[in-house]
């Protein structure tokens, strides 16, 4: 007798073309369903992972407690029409048509607006606040520039692959999983603090810090970067925080080249680029003292990514080669 009560693999993966006619069992996992990534917390439901290990917050360093999760099981529990995919209700003004780029979104080019100019710290701040409330990406170790085509306000981003490579390398050297997690988490906290500080004291990083040269293509000249001091203490600058802790840390060797797979963590040069600090680094713990220990929690406003056009992070693009618009 064929196993009729066996779980249907396709259904568990997200969809089964046979539907009710399927001879395998279509059942949703016991726990409440995570909704597809990026569909946010509109209803305020607390989403949980289907992985029984993570009943509460994710211990693996990325504190995504209140975020809509994604781990392979589709959202069969909630109403399918509760939110429409790819309907971006929040519209950021697209640049003027004379510029060389346009973001690929729905309802685009409906509301052209002049490009942002950094003449007024308050308008910069408003723009940043709006960005952080509406479009904070899930990946937190990112750089950020409030000015399109302009330099970053927050530098020192780390890519998924770098984080992963570092974790693999540390595991190979015998570090425990917990210490790897702790380091990732402290990296995350540092970056979150940078973002918080930026909004409180919008301080546009001068171009000297981030670029060796900046030339502009004719017709598209990015606004000359200006440094706007809003009177905050220098340590608040997005550039300074990682750099300060780096400078005081004695654990980085003199080698300026990138050493990977060796005993040194990521090496920083003059910029506060990706930094993996040693566990129990004295510089790190002293750096964190002035800040409240609750920095681990996410800003609650960050997860209103209810309708993002491209659902999540695009890590791969490919062009259709033979089917083209002629």
């Amino acid at each position, binding site marked *: 007798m064929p196993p009729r009560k066996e779980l249907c693999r396709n259904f568990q993966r997200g969809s089964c073309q046979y539907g009710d006619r399927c001879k395998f069992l279509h059942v949703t996992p016991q726990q409440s369903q995570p909704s597809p990534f990026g569909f946010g917390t509109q209803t305020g439901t607390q989403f949980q992972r289907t992985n029984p290990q993570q009943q509460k917050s994710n211990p693996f360093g990325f504190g995504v407690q209140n975020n809509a999760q994604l781990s392979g099981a589709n959202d069969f529990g909630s109403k399918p029409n509760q939110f429409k995919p790819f309907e971006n209700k929040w519209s950021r003004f697209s640049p003027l048509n004379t510029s060389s780029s346009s973001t690929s979104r729905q309802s685009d080019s*409906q509301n052209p607006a002049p490009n942002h100019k950094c003449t007024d710290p308050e308008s910069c701040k408003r723009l940043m606040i709006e960005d952080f409330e509406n479009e904070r990406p899930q990946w937190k170790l990112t750089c950020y520039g409030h000015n399109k085509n302009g330099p970053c306000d927050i530098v020192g981003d780390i890519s998924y692959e770098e984080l992963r490579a570092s974790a693999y390398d540390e595991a190979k050297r015998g570090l425990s999983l917990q210490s790897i997690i702790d380091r990732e988490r402290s990296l995350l906290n540092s970056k979150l603090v940078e973002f918080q500080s930026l909004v409180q004291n919008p301080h546009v990083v001068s171009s000297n810090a981030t670029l060796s040269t900046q030339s502009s293509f004719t017709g598209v000249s990015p606004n000359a970067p200006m440094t706007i001091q809003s009177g905050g203490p220098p340590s608040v600058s997005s550039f300074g925080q990682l750099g300060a802790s780096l400078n005081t840390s004695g654990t980085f060797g003199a080698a300026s080249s990138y050493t990977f797979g060796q005993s040194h963590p990521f090496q920083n040069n003059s910029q506060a680029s990706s930094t993996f600090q040693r566990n129990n680094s004295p510089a790190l713990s002293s750096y964190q003292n002035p800040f409240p220990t609750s920095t681990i929690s996410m800003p609650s406003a960050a997860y209103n990514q209810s309708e993002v056009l491209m659902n999540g992070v695009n890590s791969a693009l490919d062009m259709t080669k033979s089917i083209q618009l002629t």
Partner: protein
Amino acid sequence: MTAAPQSTGRELTGPPTDGISNLRFSNHSDNLLVSSWDKSVRLYDASANALRGEFMHGGAVLDCCFHDDSSGFTACADHTVRRLVFNYGREDILGRHDAPVRCVEYSYATGQVITGSWDKTLKCWDPRGASGQERSLIGTYTQPERVYSLSLVGNRLVVATAGRHVNVYDLRNMSQPEQRRESSLKYQTRCVRCYPNGTGYALSSVEGRVAMEFFDLSEAGQSKNYGTFATGGCDGYVNVWDGNNKKRLYQYPKYPTSIAALSFSRDGRLLAVASSYTYEEGDKPHEPDAIFVRSVNEVEVKPKPKVLPNPGT
């Protein structure tokens, strides 16, 4: 697996045992080259669903590309750039960077291998010589930041780095970039790909957006220059977009986990999808890494007629 292809496409047997960093179809056949964090590069015949070869490296392999149907190149986290000869199962080291090599491409226009690394440089190599860095290295080009992605079309090379920098080079004159730009997106760049028609490139970021850029501003206003393209996200969905209408054309059924890589076959009939957790949430348990090869129907990727603006606006 002999069942009919499921909604996700046929799953390739013998996938890598750890995350997939990239996969590419050959320009000459349905051969698929797959690089992985398990330190291997595997060659599959995607139509036959058969593993044809496997090459082990000294560290995670972060990128791979074909040269012709019988050889390819790889970018490895152990700082090496390697050349693979499939039929003989041979591989040798073409050269090294000072940090993990993140991207590798082969330029048919110049016959050179181009690599980008987290050591903030781009290097060009001549693959015809004997192995060894002294012979094969043509040039080293410093970038403003660690290289995250690069793409070629014709004589143009686009490099995307950390810190949202983008450099555009003419391969015939690498002494300095043709253009230096910042990304028009506000967050970290993930991926850059040139349009096959050579007029520009698409750039994606961690915020989930894609920006369409042109090399030459005079082309920007024309509506017929966008093509259709596919994107894969950490939500497990593959979407196909119409660049002209700026709308989604199609969405494939959800894959088990993050889409790490996509590749269309040379004739656009097949789409290979790497469903492989990309670590965007740090270290956590995840679905097994898998490769799906699905047929592409014209209706899924053919752009719809251009939507004209309303007379009233």
